[in-house]
């Protein structure tokens, strides 16, 4: 029961690729937007937050459909990229984009909560010690909310492992190219008798997310110690 076919292994490798890439690529933007939402004084905050939350509110399939509209051959971004001969849909890039978009609200919320909890006095002290804005941002603000950042990244990673609805639309379900674990699981569950194979893949997902969880705990602890 717990054996993985080569086909399954491919799906696992792709899932890992997608989850890792999506998490790493989204984090800088997540931090920037969380910072803006936590400390920004502009008017548009609620609107920005609303837009970021969209992928959470809409069913993933709808999100996938909207992404298809944008990244498709005739879509706004798609036609632009087409000129540079960059193809998004039906490639792994599409899977990564889908995961990024769907996980983004989770990432931003986590980081934002962490940032709001920082005592601004630390920031002040750093400034008077000669650290510029960016310097103190990187040496004070970021490390002080590193727990929250890791928490957000873990959430994003986990969500990417489980992302199905948007991915299947934007990236298609192409074995060896875009078929990640959830897509493979779906395929198994849509076949009578495929349950045990589906379960095996579920276990793999679970083990992966546990590993990341324990890793992020360990990193956080080490960071806390100094």
């Amino acid at each position: 029961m717990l054996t993985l076919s080569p086909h399954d292994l491919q799906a696992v490798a792709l899932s890992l690729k997608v989850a890792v890439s999506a998490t790493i690529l989204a984090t800088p933007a997540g931090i920037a937007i969380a910072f803006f939402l936590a400390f920004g004084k502009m008017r548009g905050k609620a609107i920005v937050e609303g837009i970021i939350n969209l992928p959470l509110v809409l069913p993933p399939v709808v999100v996938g459909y909207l992404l298809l509209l944008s990244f498709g051959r005739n879509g706004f971004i798609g036609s632009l990229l087409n000129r540079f001969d960059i193809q998004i849909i039906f490639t792994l890039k599409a899977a990564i984009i889908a995961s990024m978009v769907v996980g983004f609200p989770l990432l931003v919320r986590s980081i934002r909560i962490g940032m709001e909890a920082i005592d601004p006095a630390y920031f002040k002290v750093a400034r008077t010690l000669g650290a510029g804005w960016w310097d103190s941002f990187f040496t004070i603000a970021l490390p002080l909310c590193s727990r929250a950042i890791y928490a957000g990244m873990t959430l994003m990673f986990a969500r990417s492992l489980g992302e199905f609805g948007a991915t299947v639309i934007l990236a298609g379900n192409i074995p060896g190219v875009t078929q990640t674990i959830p897509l493979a699981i779906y395929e198994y569950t849509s076949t009578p008798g495929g349950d045990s194979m589906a379960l095996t893949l579920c276990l793999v997902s679970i083990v992966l997310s546990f590993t990341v969880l324990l890793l992020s705990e360990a990193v956080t602890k080490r960071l806390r110690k100094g």
Partner: protein
Amino acid sequence: AEVRISAAASMTNVIHELSAQFVAQHPDVTIVPNFGPSGGLAKQIQQGAPADLYISANTKWMKLLVDEKLIAPGTKAIFAYNSLVFVGQHEKRITALADLPELERIGIGTPTSVPAGQYAAQALRASGLYDQLLKSGKLVMAKDVRQALIYADRGETDGSFVYKTDAMLMTSAKILFEVPQNLYDPVAYPIGLTSSGAANIEAKALYDYIVSPEAKTIIAKHGFSIASH
């Protein structure tokens, strides 16, 4: 009284219309539909979800329930058939399976899990094209027929294999050709009364209505055929 139907999502419109007709004749009956993926519905029934009628887009899931004695003996019946077409943007001069290798991307339901994909693959194999298309990476697998249709409709694929009934949902794509029916098994939609539904007289009446000749005009109106080719 209540009749609960668990029906494949692709039957949504047909069942809505058939229900309306039936209720017009039996005003005291309320029909409670539940549309979803055929496999999901089968599993719900396995777990004791209340359902009187099961309508599948796939004979395999029906067989599973029959084998588990969850369908009342002798009530399994094929009440509609479908056929495969190839749809795509009109400017492409594609008129037969043999033209497909000229295309870059072809949408098809994942053969292992989507019945429509299975039939399409069968037809492609019969014409000796499947392996060639698969190897050259031209086949874009979709999770269901609906998705293959969207791809074709939006021009993301040069064309897709879909059911004739689904082709009615298109806005810009057109049917480029019908897949010769001799290349694939009949696309059959089975219906069955569940073992709990067998005790429900209204459910039995609705079942009888759906498999009756009366219903066939409505079924045909939605693009299904009423008999095997």
